[in-house]
């Protein structure tokens, strides 16, 4: 079992998110995270879904997704050169004495402090799984109050595209 990242281009229609996520749950596939956003083409959205599944299951997932009328294209980015990033907001306890330590950690991870209040700060960080995990580990030392994350988005490296233009 490994993590797979699927980029799914869908028609931007009401219910399409339910169609895709419903398919995952009813066939017993586990979505780890999901991010939905726009593309360059009007009317087409891009869903990035991270699933934990063996290759045979992933093949089946892709085939089932392809049967959805509103699904236009699916690419499995896992085994191809690609980049994947997630954005994470962390609200961390920030006693005045700890602030400079936090600031240092933030610099190391190329994160950003985007909000400061008397006893907490919000830090924004983007990266791949490993970086975010490491960052959270460091922040735990200060005390994490809450986190919010976007889910992963991904693109092929180089010239390869998930989809040319609309046929």
């Amino acid at each position, binding site marked *: 079992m490994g993590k797979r990242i699927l980029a799914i281009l869908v028609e931007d229609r009401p219910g399409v998110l339910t*169609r895709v996520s419903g398919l995952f749950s009813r066939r017993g596939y586990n979505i780890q995270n999901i991010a939905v956003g726009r593309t360059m083409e009007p009317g087409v959205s891009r869903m990035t879904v991270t699933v934990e599944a063996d290759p045979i299951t992933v093949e089946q997932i892709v085939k089932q997704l392809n049967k959805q009328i509103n699904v236009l294209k699916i690419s499995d980015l896992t085994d191809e050169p690609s980049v994947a990033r997630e954005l994470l907001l962390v609200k961390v306890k920030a006693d005045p004495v700890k602030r400079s330590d936090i600031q240092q950690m933030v610099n190391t991870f190329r994160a950003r402090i985007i909000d400061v209040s008397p006893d907490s700060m919000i830090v924004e960080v983007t990266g791949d799984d490993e970086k975010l995990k490491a960052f959270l580990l460091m922040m735990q030392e200060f005390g994490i109050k809450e986190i919010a994350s976007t889910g992963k988005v991904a693109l092929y490296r180089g010239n390869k595209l998930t989809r040319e233009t609309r046929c």
Partner: protein
Amino acid sequence: MKLTGAEMVLSCLEAEKVDVVFGFPGGSVLTLYDEIYKKGLRHILSRHEQGAIHAADGYARASGKPGVVIATSGPGATNLVTGIATAYMDSIPLVVITGQVARPFIGTDAFQEADITGITLPITKHNYLVKEIEELPGIFKEAFFIASTGRQGPVLIDLPKDLQVEEGEFRYPHQIEIYGYRPTYEGHAGQISKALALIKKARKPLIYAGGGVITSGAHQELMELSQTGTIPVTTTLTGMGSIPYDYELFLGMPGMHGTYAANHAINESDLLITIGARFDDRVTGKIEHFAPHARIIHIDIDPAEIGKNIVADIPIVGDVRMVLKEILKRFKSGETEDWCKKIQEWKAAHPLRYKQTEPGCLKPQFVIEELDRLSDGDAIVTTDVGQHQMWTAQYFRFKQPRTLITSGGLGTMGYGFPAAIGAQVAFPGQLVICIAGDGSFQMNSQELATAVHYQIPVKVAIINNKYLGMVRQWQKMFYGGRYSQTSMDGSPDFVRLAEAYGAKGYRATTVEEVGPVIEKAFNTPGPVLMDFHVDPEENVLPMVAPNTSIVEMIGGDE
């Protein structure tokens, strides 16, 4: 041309050459029904929406054309759910039209509001909620196209009430292109060559054919493949009729209640040529033990079926008829003499059989045999679900495709009778027999009113064993004979029930009475119900216990 939404629906149906619809009216489809009234579209009014949709399904299975059903919002729509799922599981083309509350009320828990597109998401091939009048013609065009192409299936269109009165410009598209929907029809040439090489080399090939053969109309090509290569054939429940029963290389049905020859052939085969079938667990038994010596060719129109339950050596995605035609172009003969000899020995030594226990005791299998004999196998047969369904598949000698109409995938009790009504609507002059269970029949017996009102001359044969027989059989075999809630005590007198509706009813309780009752029923115009009181404790044999190998067969072989 400016039309109202309701007028548009009628124009769309006309453009799709729909000459009959099944349905049941209500508040949110009043305008649509008014239009049906004005245009005089033929409409069969059922007594329950489930009756209407099973009838549309029976119509589709018998004719090959998409069935159309209409229901109102809320309870009307939810009453369709079982029928939609039934059609979905067996890949039957339906266009389901439901009323919806007016657009401003959607999402407010309005009177008779149900989110039917949400509810039916997992059981439709696709569905639509029409939000703008301009979309309506295109959606209908797409719905009929999607329902009846590729792997067929039900498509639902939810039509808000206010949209039915709104006016819009009507132009029915002649052609459509749906970007996310492009079924593959032509098989990959390289794969076909590989398959051909395997078929030529095989010494113990076996064809395992399913419902896809019937949908694609590939029965002739199937026969040709079998004859050219002298390759034995087994067909699944939904594939029944694609090969005539009496054909010498036909082995009957495989699987849980399959024949000895079919199951053993699968077990020993060196090449399983799978055509429009999907390795259902009722066919494969314990999948790890299925076809242990065989390479597998899997031809199917749905890529998602390939590799779903079993890994195929040669997958071919495409329309099975087109693929078979390609294979046949380059296939001249096979070398299967020894194999066929062995198969004929199995057939001869282990035919399907049942024991006439005490004299006079009426066996259900005998009733099926008599129905077959007296109709000369020249009938459209529908069934409900249970023992009688399996006996029908085992003992009725189907000769033609589209003559067995049965709920295979979902196994829906109550399907048979309304489906028979639909099949009869498609073929008014044909003999249509519904072989029903006493339990199942009561799930849609209200449709007697429909049959009588329209004088739809369906002949219903209830295999009355006074039990939910198939469940009783499992209780007998696997639950220590504890018959928990499977007695049908309290059922009505079916003959008098039929008479109460104005149909004819006849009963047979002995072997001698069976033939005359059937003949009388076949010769009586209009709907007729036959009530056969059969041995209540008879079991369907042979049987493979669930999740065991299909050659571990219980019974049927004494």
